[in-house]
């Protein structure tokens, strides 16, 4: 302890040296880095599982694995990608960027910040360890519908429940921290409507997290007692109802979908104005649209359940409410395009990812609209059409924005520039392969291929093979991505403080490699005004 305090002098508040820097850190940048690397490792693990899935599906027949193991792969792929990769990556971005964007020195609750990160590797470790347990990992899908996940589940399910609880704690603490930071640590002269869109979307997402994660905790706790303590929440023979599980799950699950996409909207709302050299179109309508989407996300959950035997009135209501989401989402897309309109565009790597986000996410939005039409959902439900839909919104939506953000802010994080031509090669490789991977899945679903099956009849063979080859190519693109990022950190050319000509935002007023504590003196009113998105 004495060495640690000795290195702190009043003028230079730098990081500790060695491994303990990362264990004990309370610094938002260090913790953001930890989150991002954790998310990236989980992305690679989840991606490796997906490679296993696509290898089995390359040809009809069972070539590589038992169907039970296949179900473990699909389940763990979904859980790891949602809870291990996408969510922590956005918390990492939030940690890195929010204090810099609101003119604060650090997060409001730095010790809790450390804790909420360090829960994650343990939760992820517990989740992954189920693969090595007797009976295997959870094999009931990432949606873990009862009673498949209660009476009929492997013993490792209790470890899964514990891991979900831990992940929930971590997310709620992260959300509280972000709300506290945005509301209390903001530069005194920054009004709410001066905040950059990324901060706004994260603030709204935090409220979604605080609302939704306890519901998930409730669902898994009921599972736990059903499995171990003789309750019958989801067991009809004891007076329970398996459909109630789905209501509770999706009351969490639908806001969760927006937890994974609202910060993505924020990221894209920074990148497009920068490279169009034009202010964001309709700043305030963007804020209101985000808030409306967040509100609507709480009242549409049963559109995942049109086939459970809901009354017609329920189906009609959930169909109308779901279709309504297209309106604020449309507003966002129109605003991004209006931002590009009559701009002076250049196409550096972050812009390529952002524009392709708008394009591909909108395709996911169209298939989402189709799925929202309840009678048509009868034919789409639980087919590859759904798989294609949610991979278009989560991979070419959420993940796309995370990669865009990485290239956009990497110079600020490292003080160095990445290799632009390699990054462009990586972009084209990824965007072609991801479409070869997911686009044919629309056809498979419409032709009647159910999801979550390890083997399929012969008429699905061709598109599955195309999809698998696309999958392997997309998976391989992450090798190049890793190289580009590591190469930037190690050998990148020095960056300037504002490496993008049109970039606005307080973060660009900091040193090329942002200093350890972002703003020790709050930025002035003039600076906030001139760096705001609506000037």
């Amino acid at each position: 302890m004495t060495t640690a305090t000795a290195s702190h002098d009043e003028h230079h508040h730098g990081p500790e040296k060695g491994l303990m820097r990362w264990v004990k850190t309370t610094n938002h940048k260090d913790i953001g880095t930890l989150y991002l690397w954790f998310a990236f490792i989980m992305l690679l693990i989840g991606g490796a599982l997906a490679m296993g899935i696509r290898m089995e599906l390359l040809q009809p027949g069972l070539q590589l694995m038992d169907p039970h193991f296949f179900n473990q792969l699909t389940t763990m792929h979904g859980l790891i990608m949602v809870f291990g990769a996408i969510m922590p990556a956005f918390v990492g971005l939030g940690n890195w960027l929010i204090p810099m964007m609101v003119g604060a020195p650090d997060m409001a609750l730095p010790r809790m910040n450390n804790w909420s990160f360090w829960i994650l590797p343990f939760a992820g470790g517990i989740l992954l360890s189920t693969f090595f347990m007797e009976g295997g990992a959870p094999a009931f899908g990432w949606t873990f519908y009862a009673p498949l996940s209660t009476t009929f589940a492997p013993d490792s399910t209790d470890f899964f429940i514990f891991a979900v609880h831990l992940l929930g704690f971590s997310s709620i603490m992260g959300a509280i921290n972000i709300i506290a930071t945005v509301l209390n640590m903001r530069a005194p002269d920054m009004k709410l409507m001066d905040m950059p869109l990324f901060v706004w979307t994260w603030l709204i997402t935090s409220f979604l997290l605080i609302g939704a994660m306890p519901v998930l905790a409730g669902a898994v706790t009921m599972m736990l007692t059903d499995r171990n303590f003789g309750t019958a929440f989801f067991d009809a023979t004891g007076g329970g109802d398996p459909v109630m599980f789905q209501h509770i799950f999706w009351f969490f699950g639908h806001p969760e979908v927006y937890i994974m996409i609202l910060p993505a909207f924020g990221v894209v709302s920074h990148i497009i104005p920068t490279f169009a050299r034009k202010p964001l179109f309709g700043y305030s309508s963007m804020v209101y649209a985000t808030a409306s989407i967040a509100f609507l996300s709480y009242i549409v959950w049963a559109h995942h359940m049109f086939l459970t035997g809901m009354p017609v009135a329920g189906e009609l209501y959930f169909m109308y409410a779901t279709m309504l989401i297209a309106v604020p989402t449309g507003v966002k897309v129109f605003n991004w395009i209006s931002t590009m309109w009559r701009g002076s565009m250049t196409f550096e790597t972050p812009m390529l990812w952002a524009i392709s986000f708008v394009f591909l996410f909108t395709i996911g939005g169209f298939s989402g609209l189709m799925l929202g039409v309840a009678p048509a959902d009868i034919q789409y439900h639980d087919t590859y059409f759904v798989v294609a839909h949610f991979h278009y919104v989560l991979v070419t939506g959420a993940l796309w924005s995370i990669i865009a953000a990485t290239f956009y802010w990497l110079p600020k994080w490292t003080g160095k520039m990445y290799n632009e031509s390699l990054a462009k090669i990586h972009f084209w490789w990824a965007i072609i392969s991801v479409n070869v991977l997911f686009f044919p899945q629309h056809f498979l679903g419409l032709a009647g291929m159910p999801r979550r099956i390890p083997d399929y009849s012969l008429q699905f063979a061709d598109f599955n093979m195309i999809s698998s080859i696309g999958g392997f190519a997309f998976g391989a693109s992450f090798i190049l991505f890793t190289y580009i990022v590591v190469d930037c950190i190690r050998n990148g050319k020095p960056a300037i403080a504002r490496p993008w000509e049109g970039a606005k935002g307080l973060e660009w007023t900091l040193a090329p490699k942002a200093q350890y504590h972002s703003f020790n003196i709050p930025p002035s009113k003039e600076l906030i005004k001139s760096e705001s998105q609506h000037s």
Partner: protein
Amino acid sequence: MIALNFLISLAVYANDCFYLGGYMSKLSSVVALSIALISTAVFSEYGLNMTEGVTSVSRDIYSLHMMVFWVCVVIAIIVFGAMFYSVFAHRKSKGAVAAQFHESTKAEILWTLIPVVILVAMAIPASKTLINLEDTSKAEMTIKITGHQWKWQYDYPKEGISFISNLAKTSKNSLRTDLKPQHYLLEVDKRVVLPVDTSIRFLITSNDVIHNWWIPAFGVKQDANPGFINDAWAKIDEIGTYRGQCAELCGKDHGFMPIVVDVVSKADYAKWVAKEQASAAAAADSATKTWLKSDLMAKGKDVYEANCAGCHKIDGSGIPPIFPAMKNSVIANGPAVEHMKIVLHGKGGMPTFKMLGDADLASVITYERNAFGNTASVVQPSDVKSAR
């Protein structure tokens, strides 16, 4: 339609190119061209789009699907058209100077209201279809469908017919071989038979986990919830064979519980009912007599492979610890009463098998007790009957 055809041929073309990639070294371009022509000729096999189906509901669903699809296409052309125009025209390298406009309340109101109008226009036919397809009150006959891990049970309550439908052996035996039978994974050992032009109500439930009974051509897809009964209906217009699959993850063999329905004329349906009733009566008779061990073992092997081998494996080795082995099992070598109790009522993850007939159960229990090197007692149908 031209656009759709274009899309299809593009996909087929991409498909061909793709295939050729792997074999290019072996094939001359002439051969390549002929393969491209052949596969274009049979592209209907590829299945790019939803099919219309053979009920009024499935056709309504299809036209809703196409309507929403074309609305999306039109919106996509406008929105992406504007975006790509901007990407090409408003670039710095062409000397574009950025305008500085950044809001327009008029535009925001316009692109809020226009989508609302489009959505209302879509919601009206969707609501009509939905209300129609949920109304099962006009049914002329009813069948009950029960999902089991991993097979379907069909009951015709009024006709007194009941049977189990498993994945066909031809598919089961070719899971790990290169040669696949016709209708691989979409064939069963006993098909459902239904009359044409008759309004049929399906009562759908489950015995263990949630399953989902889906025949795309009927536009019927409904969850089978344990402890609850859902309903759906169809009036099938065309005689033929229709295939579907379980559409809700239900455990290990979710991918291996197909549905096959033979839709026949009303006269043929009546004949089928009479035949089924006669064989049900014969089965009831055979359950009262005493069977030879060799007959029990022979029948037991078939029942075992259809119902038990999925978990306990053909050679009785199981997948411990979730699915215990039959070989040297304490239960299969212990008292017959305990063995029958587990098969009849299930235990933990193992479902009940009481829907099987006395003769089937007696033979499968006898088989389990005397195959795989086990040596235990023979169980007669009358024993099963009294154990129920």
